[in-house]
């Protein structure tokens, strides 16, 4: 589909690049966010198939912002993908949902651990919590729908899976993903630059401990 530009209030635009999950769209959403932020009108938030572009209407009229988008999309399509870092997450596979996820998936616990740690993931984008990176794709054998009733408290460092994706909870929080392990790696440090250990576009590897 061609990109659709929607007003998100009078201070932002939501540029929708597609309607379904697709790794190429994730990369395009990120490139559009980079191109927007390079103009210094305001921040951008890329996600699966869309990019939120924020601006101050006292400085940039919304219709002028809309007119910038086609050029940015062309630039984003042409932009070389940035060098991505590899982030290794030392993981103890002892989460409370480990056995359940293995059973749902028709795997032994050892097979589940091998499947989860046996491939590199792409960090699609960050959201939900500071430093929370949505990573995928999971081995399709791993069956892990979101919990029907989210936990009130997931501890910081919990390694989780849900719906074809995996992530680490950087902070203690309510959460609906299934917990298969934990890490001591600090995923969000407000004193660090950048504060998030995993950046969008990075490769992520879970290393069993």
């Amino acid at each position, binding site marked *: 589909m061609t990109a659709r530009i929607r*007003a998100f*209030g009078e201070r932002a635009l939501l540029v929708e690049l597609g309607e379904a999950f697709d790794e190429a769209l994730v990369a395009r959403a990120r490139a559009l966010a980079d191109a927007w932020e390079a103009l210094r009108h305001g921040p951008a938030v890329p*996600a*699966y198939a869309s990019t939120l572009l924020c601006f101050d209407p*006292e400085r940039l009229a919304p219709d002028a912002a809309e007119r910038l988008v086609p050029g940015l999309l062309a630039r984003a399509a042409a932009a070389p993908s940035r060098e991505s870092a590899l982030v290794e997450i030392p993981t103890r596979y002892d989460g409370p949902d480990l056995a359940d996820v293995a059973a749902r998936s028709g795997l032994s616990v050892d097979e589940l651990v091998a499947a989860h740690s046996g491939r590199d993931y792409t960090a699609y984008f960050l959201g*939900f919590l500071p430093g929370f990176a949505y990573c995928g794709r999971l081995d399709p054998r791993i069956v892990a729908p979101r919990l029907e009733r989210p936990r009130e408290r997931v501890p910081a460092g919990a390694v989780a899976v849900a719906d074809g994706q995996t992530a680490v909870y950087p902070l203690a929080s309510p959460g609906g993903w299934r917990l298969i392990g934990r890490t001591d790696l600090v995923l969000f440090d407000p004193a660090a630059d950048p504060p998030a250990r995993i950046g969008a576009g990075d490769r992520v590897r879970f290393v069993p401990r």
Partner: protein
Amino acid sequence: MIHLDEVSLRATVQDGGRGAHLRAGVPHAGAADPLAFRAAQALAGNAPGDAALEIIGLPFAFHCDDARLVAVTGREVSLRARDELPGWVSVFVRAGQTVTVLGTERTRFAYLAVSGGLATPPLLGSRSAYPAAGLGAVLRAGGALPLGAPRAEASAAGRTVAFTYGGTVAAMAGPHADRFGAEALAAFFGSPFRVLPDSDRQGVRLAGPSVAPREGEILTCGVVAGAVQVPRGGQPIVLLADHQTTGGYPVIATVVEADLGRVAQAAPGEELLFERVGREEALRRGAAARALLPAYQYP
């Protein structure tokens, strides 16, 4: 320094917010009622990006080491120094003079700006507190915060901003209006919604007629303060300053910035009525709200 003599519930430092790290999942934060915040800053002679206190739960009492121009804004706020004074007025307070900020049972957020601004160390480019991620802290009684050099003098006292919290809440439809049926949109823009008690700086939860989307969830996307998310159950949530950077529920409408304070300051049990406006009208209302503020000027 400013000294916090009495804190009834929660006080935090807030400024223009932490927009630069949204892509790391860091919430924007900043004032829940942006217009009241900007009014307090303008009355105290500060820039919109300076830091002030956001206070939940009154009374709140403070004193400063030196004489300062201060301003208190928010819904139904007043202050007591030597005399009782209304809110939304710039006041010159003497060194060491204790000032108490007062509210009513309807006050949710009060803003205290002090000339020179709060000079706490910025973290990730902002002084706004988001304690859940280790960014700033909830302030305690007995604490003290550094202040910048004063920028306004006694002669700037007595300026006022005339602002009222009544009236409808202007909102633009969308961005996901097409996920909702005509009936849901008509109900959203035509029915009163009651504010629920479990509302906070992340969002204001509303109860009213169901405005459920035709399809449940969307692909998670970036969201802004003012977004009216509708979970499957059909009861809307208006996002405020501490909202998550992304969301997976369809957004039926987005409250214009000028009216965000009306939502933030609504007390549990009160009703809000949303009025559909287009972008030009949203911009016009934003300009009209800013025109209420005294022109910001450095000395």
